[in-house]
C-alpha cells in the first residue's frame, strides 16, 4: 500500500480520483437498483400488499433460514428486473430521429452521476490529503446546478426524437417544469450560502459539523422546504410527475422507448433522486458529520463511519421521496407552474432578503 | 510549449470566424442566431484570457455582463423570431426581404 505514497502528487491525485469515481459509481448503481425495490416494497406496505417476494436465484434455496427471508424481502428482484430489461426486445419505431433517439436516454442518466462528483460523502480515510469527495470545487454548488440544468436536454431530445405528439408534449412540459423549478431551487440555496459564506460543499459540511444544532435545516427552514419541493419537481417525481402522467400523456417523453433505453430513463430518475438526496444531506443535514459532532476522521474506520452516516441520512431522505410518491395526489400543470413562479420564487427572494438583513444586523 | 495568451486569442479568433461564417452562409434565422452566440462566446474567451494574463478582473466582469445581456438578448430575439414566424410562416432569411426597395 505504501507504494502509493512514493508517487508524485499528481499521479496520486489521478489514481485516488479514479478509485473514488469507480466506487461512487458502483455504489450509486447499487442504490438505484435497490431504490427501485424499496419503492415497490414501501408502496406495497402503504397499500397493504406484500410486494415482490418471489424472484429467487437457484442458490438461494440452499441457504438455510436466510435464503427464504431474503427472497421474501425481494432482495433478488432487482437482478431479475435488470435481466428483464436487457433481454427484452429493443424496439425502435420507424419515424423517430435515430441519433437523438439513442442519445436522449444517455443524456438523462449522465448528469445525475456527474452531480455526485462534488458531494463530499465522507471526511477522509485516514489520509488528510485525500478527502472523500471526487472534485473539491470551490464553486461546487454552481457546478452541480450547471450539470442539473443539462439534464433537461435528455428529456427535450427524447420528446423531440420520438417524433410523436405525446412524447413531444411530455418533453415540453417536463423541460418547462425543470427550468422553472431550477430557478426556485437555485434561489433557495443562495440564502444558505449567504449564511455559510462559501460555495465549496466541503466548507458547507464543515460549517454544520459541530453538532445537530448547526444543521442548516434549522437555520434556513424555508430554504430547505423550497429546495425539497423543487427537488421533487426536478426529478419529475410525484406530486410533480406531469411529464409522464400516464392518464394524460400515455407515458410522457419515454412513451416510445423500450427495453434498455427505457431502463436508462428509469436509472436516470433514481440516480437523480439519489443525487438530490445527497445534495440535501450535504446542504441541510450536516453531510457526513455525526449529529453529535466530531471533526474529520482520524483513521480508516472513522472514515467509514462517516460514509455510513452520510448514507443513512441519504436513505432517510430517499424514504421521504418514496413515501411522498404514494401519499400525495398529482398537481395540475397550471398549479405546478403557479407554485413555482408565483409562490416559490418570491418566497425564496424574501428569504434571501431577510437573511441578508439578519446577517447585516448581526455583523454590525 | 507553454500555453500563453496568444494561444487563447488564436482560438478565440478562429471561433469568431466560424461564427461569422455561420452568419454569412447559413439561411436559417435560428442557426444564424446561434452563430451569433458563437461569436459572442469567442469574444468572451478572449476577454477571460486577457483578464487572466493581465491580472485584472475587469475582463471577467465584462464577460459576466455579456452573458447576462446575451440571455436577455436571446430571449427577446427568439420571441421576435417566433412572432415573425407566426406572421410570415418562415424563418428563412431569403424569404424575409421586405426591406428590399
Amino acid at each position, binding site marked *: 500500500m505504501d507504494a502509493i505514497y512514493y508517487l508524485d502528487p499528481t499521479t496520486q491525485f489521478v489514481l485516488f480520483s479514479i478509485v473514488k469515481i469507480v466506487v461512487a459509481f458502483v455504489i450509486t448503481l447499487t442504490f438505484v437498483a435497490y431504490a427501485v425495490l424499496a419503492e415497490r416494497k414501501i408502496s406495497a406496505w402503504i397499500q397493504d400488499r406484500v410486494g415482490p417476494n418471489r424472484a429467487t436465484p437457484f442458490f438461494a434455496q440452499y441457504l438455510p433460514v436466510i435464503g427464504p427471508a431474503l427472497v421474501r424481502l425481494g432482495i433478488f428482484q432487482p437482478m431479475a428486473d435488470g435481466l428483464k430489461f436487457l433481454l427484452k426486445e429493443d424496439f425502435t419505431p420507424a419515424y423517430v430521429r435515430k441519433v437523438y433517439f439513442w442519445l436522449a436516454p444517455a443524456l438523462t442518466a449522465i448528469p445525475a452521476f456527474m452531480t455526485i462528483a462534488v458531494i463530499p460523502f465522507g471526511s477522509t480515510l485516514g489520509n488528510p490529503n485525500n478527502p472523500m469527495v471526487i472534485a473539491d470545487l470551490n464553486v461546487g454548488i454552481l457546478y452541480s446546478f450547471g450539470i442539473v440544468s443539462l439534464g433537461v436536454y435528455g428529456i427535450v431530445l427524447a420528446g423531440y426524437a420520438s417524433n410523436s405528439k405525446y412524447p413531444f408534449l411530455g418533453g415540453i412540459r417536463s423541460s418547462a417544469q425543470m427550468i422553472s423549478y431550477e430557478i426556485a431551487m437555485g434561489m433557495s440555496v443562495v440564502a444558505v450560502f449567504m449564511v455559510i459564506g462559501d460555495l465549496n460543499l466541503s466548507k458547507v459540511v464543515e460549517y454544520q459539523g459541530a453538532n445537530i444544532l448547526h444543521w442548516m435545516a434549522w437555520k434556513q427552514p424555508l430554504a430547505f422546504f423550497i429546495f425539497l419541493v423543487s427537488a421533487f419537481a426536478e426529478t419529475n417525481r410525484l406530486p410533480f410527475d406531469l411529464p409522464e402522467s400516464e392518464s394524460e400523456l400515455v407515458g410522457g417523453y419515454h412513451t416510445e422507448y423500450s427495453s434498455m433505453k427505457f431502463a436508462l430513463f428509469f436509472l436516470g430518475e433514481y440516480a437523480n433522486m439519489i443525487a438530490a438526496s445527497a445534495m440535501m444531506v450535504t446542504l441541510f443535514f450536516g453531510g457526513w458529520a455525526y449529529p453529535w459532532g466530531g471533526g474529520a476522521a482520524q483513521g480508516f474506520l472513522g472514515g467509514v463511519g462517516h460514509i455510513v452516516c452520510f448514507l443513512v441520512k441519504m436513505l432517510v431522505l430517499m424514504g421521504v421521496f418514496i413515501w411522498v410518491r404514494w401519499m400525495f395526489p398529482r398537481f395540475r400543470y397550471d398549479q405546478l407552474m403557479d407554485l413555482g413562479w408565483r409562490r416559490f420564487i418570491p418566497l425564496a427572494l424574501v428569504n434571501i432578503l431577510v437573511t441578508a438583513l439578519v446577517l447585516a444586523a448581526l455583523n454590525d | 510549449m507553454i500555453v500563453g495568451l496568444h494561444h487563447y486569442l488564436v482560438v478565440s479568433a478562429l471561433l469568431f470566424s466560424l461564427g461569422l461564417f455561420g*452568419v454569412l452562409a447559413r439561411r436559417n434565422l435560428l442557426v444564424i442566431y446561434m452563430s451569433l452566440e458563437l461569436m459572442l462566446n469567442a469574444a468572451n474567451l478572449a476577454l477571460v484570457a486577457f483578464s487572466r494574463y493581465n491580472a485584472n478582473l475587469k475582463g471577467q466582469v465584462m464577460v459576466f455582463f455579456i452573458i447576462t445581456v446575451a440571455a436577455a438578448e436571446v430571449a427577446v430575439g427568439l420571441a421576435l423570431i417566433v412572432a415573425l414566424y407566426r406572421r410570415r410562416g418562415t424563418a428563412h432569411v431569403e424569404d424575409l*426581404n421586405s426591406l*428590399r426597395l
Partner: protein
Amino acid sequence: MEPTHLPATNFQDLAWAILLLPLVSALAITLGLRRNRELTTTLSLSAVGIGFGLSVWLFFLYGVSGERLAATPLSWMSVGSLSAHLGLTVDPLSTLMLMVVTGVSFLVHVYSTGYMEDDPEYPRYFASLGFFTFSMLGIVLSDNFVQTFIFWELVGVSSYLLVGFWYEKPAAADAAKKAFLTNRIGDFGFLLGILIVWAATGTVSFDAMAAKLKAEPGILGAAASLAGVLIFLGAVGKSAQLPLHVWLPDAMEGPTPVSALIHAATMVAAGVYMLCRVYFLLDLPAAWPAALSFLGSISALDVIAWTGALTSLVAGVIAIQQDDIKRILAYSTLSQLGYMVMAVGCGGPDAAMFHLTTHACFKALLFLGAGAVIYACHHEQNIWKMGGLAKRMPVTFWTFLLATAALCGLPVLSSGFYSKDAIFAAALASNRPVLFGIGVLVVGLTTLYMSRLVIIAFLGESRSEAASHAADPGRNMTLPLLILAVPSVSLGWLPVGAYFKSAIFPGAVTHSAEGFSDVFFEPFNHSPLGAFLGFGLMAFGLSVAFATYWGAAMDPMPGHLPRLSRALRNRLYFDEIYAATLIPLHDAVAALADWVDRWIVQGLFVRGISGGMDLFGRALRLVQTGNLQTYAFLFVAGVALVVLLALK
C-alpha cells in the same frame, strides 16, 4: 441699505408659503377636484385666506420695522455671466403689497363664491384665480428681473385664462386674445430693457443692480434713458398706459370679480409696482444713444410722467360718454393708473404706491359693487337700463357711494383724497405745473363721470323690469363690499405715504403727522393748492353732473354735442386707428415673413436639403437587396477594413 442675508428662518418659510399656497390649491383643483365644488371652495379660500394672514404677520414682523431681507436664493440656471435665481425679497414695499394682493384676492374669492355660484365651470374659475394670485405674488416677491419677467408673463397667461373664462362667447375670447397680444408689445420692450440693463451692469438682481448703480452712477452710459423707457414699456402694457391701453376696456368681458381683482387692484398695478421697485433705474439724468440724441434732455421720467398724465386725461374724457357700467369703471381705472404713472414720473413713487394701495381698495369695491348690480339686474350692464337701485340695494349703494367718494377724492372722508393729493404734491415738487394742471382737471372729469354713473344707475326711477326687482345679493357678496368700504374711507388717515417714502427712499426725512387736524387735514396743510383746487373742481363736476343728468331719461349729450359725443363713444377711435394703421402694417410684415419662411426657409433650405437627400437616397437604394446576409457581409467587410486600418 444692503439686504441682510439671513439663513433659512421663518420669514423665508412665510414668504414661500404665501407664494406657493395659491399655486398648490390651483394645482390640486386642476388635477384632482374638478367636480367637487365644496372642496374647491374650501381649498382656494383657505389658501388665499391663510396667505393673507401670513402676509399680515410678515408685515408686522418685518414690514413695519423697515427691515430689508432677502431669502437665500435658489439657483435656477447659470448661462455664461447670466445667473438666474429664484429669490424672494421681503421689504416694506413687498410686504404691504403682499397684504394688498392677498387681501383683495381673498375678498374677491369670497365674493366669487356667490357671483359664480351657478357657473358650471366653477372649479376651473377658482383654479385660474389661484394661479393668477400665485403669479402676482411672484412679481411682488421677486428680487430680480428674470424672475419678475417670468411671473410677469405668468400673470399675462393667467389673466388670459380669466378674461377668456367664458370662452364660448366670441367677445370674451377676442378680448382675452387682445389683452394678451397687446401686452406682448409692452413685454417685448420690457425684455429689451432688461437685456440692456443686464448687459451694462452684469446682474439681474435688483439689490446688486442698485448697489452697482450707487457705486458707479454712470454705469448705464448712453443707454440710461432708453433702458428706462423700455422697462417702462413693460409697465405701459401691463398697466394699460396710453398707446397700449386698448385692451383693458375690452377685458371687461371677463367675470366681474375678475375685473375687480385683475383690472383694478392687482395686475394693472403690477406695472406701477415694478416701476417703483426699479425706481433707482429710472431716476437717472437724461442720456440717449446717438441715434436718439434728438430727444436731448428729455429723461425717462419725463416720458413716464407725460404718458401717465395723457392716459389719465384721455381715459377720463372717454369715460364721460360710456354707458356700460364696467367700461366706465375700466376707463376710470385707466385714468387712475395714469395718475400713478405720472406720480412715478414726477419723482413720487411713494405717492404712486400710496395711490395704488388706496385705489386697490376702492376700485375693487367699485367693481364688486358693479358686479352686485349686474348680478341683481340679470347681467344687464347698461346704466341706462338701471335706475333707482339705491332703495332696493342699500348695502351696495352705500358702499358704492363711499368708493365713488374715494375715487373722486372727497376731502377727509375718503382715502383717495390723501393719495391723490400726494400725487399733486409730487407734481408740484418736481416743478411740472402742466402735469399738475392736468391732474387737477382730471379730478373734475372723474367726479363728472362717476356722478353720472351713480345718478343714472342708483337714483331716480327704475328704467327696466330687471332693475325694478333688483335686491342686495347674499351675504358672501355683500360682506366683501362692507369690508372693503373700511379701508376705502380710512386708509388715508394712516401714514401710508410716509411708510412708502421710507420704503423706497431709505433714510429719507418723512413728514409725520401728529394731532387731530394734522392727521385729517394734512393735505390742506401740506399742499394746499392741490387740495383746494381739487375740491373746487370736484364740486364743479358734481354740479355739472346733477344739472345734466338728474332726472334725465336718456343721455342729453349726443343731442347737444353730437360730434364730441360720437367720438367719445367710439373711444376716440383708438381701435379704429390701430385697425387702419398698425394692423395692415403688421399684416404686411407677417406676409413678408410668411413669404420668406415659405419660399426661402421652407422651399430652398428645407425642401432643397431634403430633396438632395432624397436623390442621394434613391441612388443608395440600389444597394438595398433586403437580404440580411448581404448586409451582414457588407458590415463585416467594413469592420475588416477598419481593423486593417487600425493595424497599420
